[in-house]
């Protein structure tokens, strides 16, 4: 099995140089994306077969590459199998979408070589079973995605995004390097099996936790390490944006889970406080940022921060329950987090694909120039609607199930003995509830402004429906969102072995329950049945429709819009993205973004128009990143002097450096 998986990864890697050659051919992109589709599907099947049948033989191997005395270890355990299936599910969907979408790429030579390499790298991170291979694959993943971010480097914004991304990615790899250094320091051995067997002192374990949180958190986009994410994710071509937001953030979560739940052993109770204190605010701040945007792809990128926050809240709860020895609740929280990982991969990819379709059809990402696309692109509009409902955590779709399970875990937390957790968990629960409500507002805005209403620009008015490959990918993901929402028990059961391996217990078996209900703890406590709920809503809606059409009236007339008797033919009269979020900006933004509205009135007698300027700041950027950037700028200015010395000063400098180094060695 592992050999088959590695072969698929090798195929993906081999596609990278092939991509350089194929980029000049007319059918090159079809070949690369088609082959990527086949390879990712194969990997997905392999991972699922391992996940559903954990007794599979030969799940680990060592290849004679990498460090000479170490080799490269690869292994598929239940955790890796789950993440492999999530990654390749997203990868397959992206490849299918790109079969159609990739044809519009104006410089395929900048995308085709890196795309399969990027997929291969993400798979390699999850397959790796030693620190060296893990880090090499991680850095390879970062660099491949960086190349894709700057694929359209003629736009100056993208170059800046790529620069910030490269800096943050290097920082993340550095902290992970240090984390593995501490982990392997005791034994000096880098393979995970040895690391797992060694026990660290509490101080060192804490250091590893912090480093892993920084490293994986910066890749996943946790606040305050999120600054690069909304710049970099939208800059890439849309199918790559979907991979970065929907899939690569999951690889980061995998890294965190692998280090903290697997390699570190038994956690301390207060570690979870740290994770919760970062996860909860990430969820709320992420969606608030998203609400303030008017660029579709940036809204989606910020909403990724929200969802990663929800996942980390689940992981934090699991960590707390695991530390206190309540493995059955830990399993519930852990399963909720992983289910959200899968769900987010599905609906975020779907939404990014939809944004890609809109971009292709109209050339616009700015919502203020869209509108009325439901008439022009009816099929894309249906799929996007499903994605928006699912990500807003509304029943009967999949987003609701994972949030519901997280809430159930929160409701069990008064049983935790430690006071710190007792005080922080209600607050985190409140933040999660706030994030869920704001997410619904955010996606009403995204869908309502860009797909409903009247076209705000010529480009939106003349949009055409997209090709069938793109639509196939959209509808495949939309169908997944519905299926995972009404049959959640299947997915929970499949996650059983993962939870057992990581937290020592798993949720009760759901498959045998009547009507496919899910019951996380006991039926008297809570249960949810998406299938019945869906059937009920469908049934009562149809009954109402048939009854009214038969018994009352089915006549319909078209007429101009009423609008209180003042219809205005100009589409400019409609609400815009900014005006839609204005009330929420007034409620939350004045403190969180230091938002101010400045009305500039012309002097009396002047016929100039009045202007309204909205002034908003990213306070985290101002408080954290700007000072660092300024300090680095200052230091480099000073060091820059060294470039213009005379030769004797250079010699003197070398001499002094040598003396100092020798002194250091001597002491």
């Amino acid at each position: 099995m592992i050999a088959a998986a590695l072969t698929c990864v090798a195929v993906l890697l081999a596609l990278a140089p092939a991509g350089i050659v194929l980029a000049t051919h007319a059918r090159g992109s079809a070949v690369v994306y088609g082959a990527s589709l086949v390879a990712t599907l194969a990997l997905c099947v392999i991972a699922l077969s391992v996940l559903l049948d954990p007794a599979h033989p030969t799940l680990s191997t060592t290849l004679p590459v990498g460090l000479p005395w170490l080799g490269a270890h690869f292994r598929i355990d239940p955790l890796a199998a789950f993440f492999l299936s999530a990654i390749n599910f997203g990868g397959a969907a992206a490849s299918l979408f790109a079969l159609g979408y990739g044809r519009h790429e104006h410089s395929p030579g900048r995308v085709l070589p890196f795309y399969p390499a990027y997929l291969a790298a993400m798979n390699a991170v999850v397959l790796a079973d030693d620190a060296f291979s893990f880090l090499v694959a991680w850095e390879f993943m970062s660099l491949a995605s960086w190349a894709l971010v700057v694929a359209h480097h003629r736009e100056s914004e993208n170059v800046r995004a790529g620069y910030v991304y490269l800096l943050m990615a290097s920082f993340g790899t550095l902290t992970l390097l240090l984390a593995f250094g501490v982990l392997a320091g005791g034994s000096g051995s880098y393979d995970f099996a040895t690391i797992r067997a060694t026990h660290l002192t509490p101080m060192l374990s804490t250091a590893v936790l912090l480093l892993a949180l920084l490293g994986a958190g910066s890749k996943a986009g946790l606040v305050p390490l999120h600054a690069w994410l909304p710049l970099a994710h939208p800059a890439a071509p849309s199918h790559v944006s979907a991979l970065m937001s929907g899939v690569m953030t999951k690889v980061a979560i995998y890294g965190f889970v692998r280090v903290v739940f697997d390699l570190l052993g038994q956690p301390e109770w207060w570690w979870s406080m740290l994770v919760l204190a970062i996860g909860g605010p990430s969820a709320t701040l992420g969606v608030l940022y998203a609400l303030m945007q008017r660029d579709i792809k940036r809204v989606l990128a910020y909403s990724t921060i929200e969802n990663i926050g929800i996942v980390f809240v689940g992981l934090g709860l699991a960590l707390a329950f695991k530390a206190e020895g309540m493995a059955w609740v830990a399993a519930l929280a852990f399963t909720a987090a992983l289910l959200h990982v899968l769900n987010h991969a599905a609906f975020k990819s779907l939404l990014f694909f939809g944004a890609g379709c809109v971009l292709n059809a109209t050339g616009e990402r700015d919502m203020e120039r869209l509108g009325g696309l439901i008439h022009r692109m009816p099929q894309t509009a249906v799929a996007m609607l499903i994605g928006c409902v699912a990500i807003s955590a509304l029943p009967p779709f999949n987003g609701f199930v994972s949030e519901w399970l997280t809430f159930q875990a929160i409701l069990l937390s008064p049983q935790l003995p430690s006071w710190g957790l007792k005080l922080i968990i209600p607050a985190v629960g409140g933040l999660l509830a706030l994030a869920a409500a704001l997410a619904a507002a955010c996606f009403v805005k995204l869908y309502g402004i860009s797909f409903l209403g009247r076209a705000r620009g010529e480009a939106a008015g003349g949009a055409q429906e997209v090709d069938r490959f793109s639509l196939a990918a959209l509808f495949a993901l939309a169908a997944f969102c519905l299926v995972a929402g009404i049959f959640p028990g299947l997915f929970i059961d499949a996650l059983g072995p993962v939870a057992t391996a990581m937290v020592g217990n798993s949720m009760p078996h759901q498959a045998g329950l009547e009507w496919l209900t899910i019951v996380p703890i006991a039926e008297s406590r809570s249960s949810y049945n998406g299938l019945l709920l869906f059937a009920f809503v469908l049934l009562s809606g149809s009954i109402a429709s048939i009854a009214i059409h038969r018994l009352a009236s089915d006549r319909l007339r078209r007429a101009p819009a009423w609008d209180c008797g003042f219809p205005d033919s100009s589409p400019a009269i409609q609400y815009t993205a900014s005006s839609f979020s204005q009330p929420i900006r007034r409620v939350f933004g004045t403190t969180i973004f230091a938002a101010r509205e400045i009305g500039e009135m012309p002097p009396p007698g002047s016929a100039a128009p009045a202007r309204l300027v909205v002034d908003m700041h990213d306070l985290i950027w101002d408080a954290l990143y700007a000072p660092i950037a300024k300090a680095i700028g200052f230091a480099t200015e000073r060091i820059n002097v060294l470039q213009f010395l005379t030769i004797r000063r250079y010699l003197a400098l070398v001499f002094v450096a040598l003396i100092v180094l020798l002194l250091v060695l001597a002491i």
Partner: protein
Amino acid sequence: MSMINDLISQGAQMLLVLMLAPLLTGFVRKIKARLLRRQGPPLLQPYRDLIRLMRKDVVLAENASWLFRVIPYIIFAGTWVAASLVPTFGSGLLFSWSADLIAIIALLGSARFFLALAGLDVGTAFGGIGSSREVMIASLAEPAILIMVFSVAMIAGSTQLSTIAEFMGSSAVGLRVSLGLALVALTIVAIAENGRIPVDNPATHLELTMVHEAMVLEYSGRHLALIDLSSQLKLLLYISMIACIFMPWGAAAPEAGVRSLAFGALTYIVKLSACGVALAVFETAIAKMRVFRIPEFLGAALMLALLATLLRFVSGSL
């Protein structure tokens, strides 16, 4: 046999809420009118309005999409299903396990999501203003009610509404501070969610402060009837929810006989009327708020609910 009884009881519940909802609205209107020394419309007027609307043609805006025509059915179905999952006269509902309190709230959230989309579909300024304000109110009301649910669920040890109702009816509850806070929070949210004074005014048209009416401005005929019926159902749902959590007396237990079911129905009617009168008095006594005062009103609910939950975390008996 018991299965059939349960099925009948569930069916009766679905029909009951559908039949009672317009009557409750008519009752509140009548009481409000009497408090203002007006004669007021007859109690059955909401039924007549609904029937008349259903028989009329739908006048659809020229650029309304298919979604605009489907949304009234989605909203009605979602609200009806949610309302029939809240115990009214008895707690033994056949399908109560298919959705717990969190799911019921999320179901109402779905209905609101689609209603806000409907406001944006035709592309008028009024629709936009309604949707935009509705999501602002919801972004505070929904977390408030969810946190309120947390506190109640932690006290009762369940998020199943029927289990909560049974627990609240038993003597194990006692007098708790957190329950009092939760009741206030739920009442504030119920007022906001149903668009009652002081948050919104259900009786006005063409006023810049309106929220709900602005969103449904383009609806007519059977579509409007369904949306009106949904808001009447929602009012009934919230009052039933308050009654079943905080006034659980008299409700028939599962497997109960006809007598206790009849008694449960009677007490349910009494509870509904009491809440209706209270709502009418409250609405008559208070003035409508400016729209940007609403966040403070709802923020109070949010904080009270959070306090209730925190108290439950701090001590098992508070």
